[in-house]
């Protein structure tokens, strides 16, 4: 019998969809499929958490969730054509779009007794918070329909009992019937844009007076391209247009205020993809995800996209961008950018997304499937805890990145390695066994699939293997009696006998269950060379 040969690989690098199969032989650590996995803090591949329902009461029956914002230790939700607030989602949501609210604010009973402020055909919303001096700041809400003026809301009072708080609500008049789709706060000003009749114009409010567009410091600037998003970044306002990007400088100096082009070759597909992460603005351009810091340095070699590894996915998104709704969020504690996309009619089960984890050598990517999130938000509570919520098109709001299932539905996760040739594609290899390094976060039992010769129909392919159950280890200081297994390894190597032979093979670890997440750290394969047929 030929002597067994070892082969080990650390799983790092994330999803790679843009490298050909021969080149992938040199990068065994990347994944050719990484669905409902994320690149973990340690760089390994971790099955994502699921989501759980935020309370048991829907804000507005089954109306689409158009926008969410972490605010005042609770959540503001735009559901259908109305705006709501709740701290826990357990009881009836407080409707916020009220008319005729006193300029000095309403108490709870007065506020709830006000008539409804009608909003028309509300679409995906944008939020801007002007912190000011109030307890939780002032919230401005615009939506992509272009039908509505910006809606301003403020809540004061820090008592946990909402009924003791004071409420402010009104619509902001920009100029006559001018509406806005996009909003942001930039250097003491509210900046809005997207009025259907003036899509190239940005309007900025008076200084430190965000509900006035006629006072000192207010104004407007017309650009040469249609605005699709606004984002304040450092001391400049970045204006994302369809085919270009500008930045507004010196907003507080009427004599030097200027709009400077950043690039006229790259636009933004959708303003909902813009986020700030790690000192850069990230957004989805037609040719991939880009960072503003990169594109602002003309001639710099880092001008390229940061998503070349998933370029085929980006191409599909760009091709269908007109039919897709986007949303994005940054999970700060994971250094992660998550973007979700789906059509209005798409079910949760087919809705997709991408996850980019910022690592020392750039972003590493993975995909999601089964999370329909036309609205998503992350923010910190008054106690500094990061909360992430997303809403779907069935009127439900979820605690994002929580639990082991998609609100009771199994998480269908898969990791697939590139084909391994073990150093020589010409030699036939018979596999003896594989040791898979896992880090279980609870009892889990993924399955293993081995396919030879690029899943060739001419090669016998073995049946899928359900791996032995991987128990959650009992760790000193954290173990709970009866819920962990004493003696189980913290990072077990699961040994699995293999069958079959081929010139190359790939491994796929997959699960479709509601078990705890697990990380796949690496593979060790023992094989026997068997000639050069």
């Amino acid at each position, binding site marked *: 019998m030929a002597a067994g040969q070892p082969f080990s690989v650390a799983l790092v690098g994330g999803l790679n969809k843009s490298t050909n199969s021969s080149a992938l032989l040199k990068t065994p650590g990347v994944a050719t499929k990484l669905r409902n996995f994320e690149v973990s803090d340690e760089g390994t591949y971790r099955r994502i958490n699921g989501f759980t329902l935020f309370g048991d009461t829907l804000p507005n029956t089954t109306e689409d969730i158009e926008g969410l914002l972490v605010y005042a230790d609770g959540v503001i939700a735009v559901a259908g054509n109305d705006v709501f607030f709740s701290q826990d989602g357990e009881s009836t949501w407080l409707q916020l779009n009220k008319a005729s609210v006193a300029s000095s604010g309403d108490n709870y009973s007065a506020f709830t007794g006000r008539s409804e402020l009608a909003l028309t055909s509300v679409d995906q919303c944008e939020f801007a918070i002007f912190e000011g001096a109030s307890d939780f700041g002032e919230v401005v809400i615009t939506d992509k329909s272009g039908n509505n003026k910006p809606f301003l809301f403020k809540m004061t009072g820090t008592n946990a009992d909402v009924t003791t708080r004071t409420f402010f609500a009104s619509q902001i008049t920009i100029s006559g019937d001018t509406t806005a789709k996009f909003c942001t706060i930039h250097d003491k000003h509210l900046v809005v844009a997207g009025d259907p009749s003036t899509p190239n114009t940005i309007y900025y409010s008076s200084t430190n007076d965000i509900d006035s567009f006629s006072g000192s410091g207010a104004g407007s600037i017309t650009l040469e391209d249609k605005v699709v998003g606004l984002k304040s970044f450092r001391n400049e306002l970045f204006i994302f247009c369809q085919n270009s990007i500008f930045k507004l400088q010196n907003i507080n100096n009427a004599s030097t205020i200027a709009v400077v082009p950043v690039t006229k070759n790259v636009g933004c597909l959708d303003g909902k993809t813009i986020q700030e992460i790690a000192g850069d603005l990230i957004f989805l351009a037609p040719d991939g995800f880009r960072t503003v810091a990169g594109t602002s340095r003309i001639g710099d070699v880092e001008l390229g996209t940061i998503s070349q590894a998933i370029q085929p996915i980006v191409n599909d998104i760009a091709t269908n961008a007109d039919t897709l709704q986007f949303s994005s969020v940054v999970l700060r504690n994971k250094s992660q950018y998550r973007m979700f996309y789906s059509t209005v009619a798409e079910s949760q089960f087919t809705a997709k997304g991408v996850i980019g984890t910022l690592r020392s050598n750039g972003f590493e990517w993975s995909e999601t499937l089964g999370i329909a999130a036309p609205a998503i938000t992350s923010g910190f509570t008054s106690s500094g805890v990061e909360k992430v919520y997303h809403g779907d098109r069935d009127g439900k709001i979820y605690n994002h990145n929580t639990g082991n299932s998609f609100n009771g539905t199994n998480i269908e996760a898969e990791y697939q390695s590139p084909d391994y040739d073990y150093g020589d594609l010409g030699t036939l290899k018979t596999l003896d066994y594989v040791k898979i390094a896992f880090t279980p976060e609870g009892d889990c039992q993924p399955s293993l699939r081995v396919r030879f010769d690029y899943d060739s129909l001419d090669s016998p392919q073995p*049946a899928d293997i359900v791996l032995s159950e991987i128990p959650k280890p009992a760790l000193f200081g954290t173990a709970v009696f009866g819920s962990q297994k004493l003696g189980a390894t913290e990072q077990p190597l699961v040994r699995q006998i293999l069958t079959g032979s081929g010139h190359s093979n790939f491994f796929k670890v997959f699960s479709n269950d509601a078990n705890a997440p697990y990380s796949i750290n690496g593979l060790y394969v023992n094989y026997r060379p068997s000639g050069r047929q």
Partner: protein
Amino acid sequence: MATTYLDLTNEVLRELNEVVLTSVNFGDATGIQAFIKDSINKSIFDIANEEPQLPFFSAGASGDTDPFYGNVTVASVAGTRWYTLKAGSSSITTDFSSVDWDDFYLTTINVSGETTPFVSKGLRFLTLADWKRYYRDSENADDAEGSDASHGEPTYVIKSPDHRKFGLSPIPDKVYNVHFYAFTKPTSLAAHGDTIVLPEQYSNVITARTRYYVHQFKENIQQAAFALDEYKKNMRTMKSNLINPTPKYMTDDRTYF
């Protein structure tokens, strides 16, 4: 329980740590699986070629025509010398693989119209060379006279040069039953449920030979040598058990004066 083609294939696949087949995908075997399937048939042919007179290759049960133990009976025709060994066979590809030429038996017993005293005797095998040298010319000349009187009671059996027929010498003068023992060619296994003719205990002869071929395919010369050695040992044991299991006697037919 007889060993099936699927059983044997999977036994070898398991030994080689390869993906086993099922009755469902047996017909769709590819790569190493298909090679092993082919090698099993090749191994069975190797066994048959090395020892065609193993009892499980017998053309039929002996003694069907009691009390004669041959498993094939051919009736002679007056005036006809040559008879096809296997009735209905159209070519050498479908003939018997082997015939026990040392065990032809001639008799009139059970021949219609024959009464006692019956003819009942063994036919001696005569080589073609001797027959041509001593009998062919005279017998052919007698035969040319055209009467049964010129024929006689056969004493020898001869083998035709194409191995398809046996001949009787002298040319028969009437109908006799010729009993002999024949062995068939093995048939290739095809369907997953096809069973081998070997008793299960000797299936390791096939698998050893198959591994010999597979290790050669995988360029594993050392393992191929081991498998070949195992095959030879198993084959020797099987032949010893099946062909020579009876007591052996030494006889001395010298005459003392």
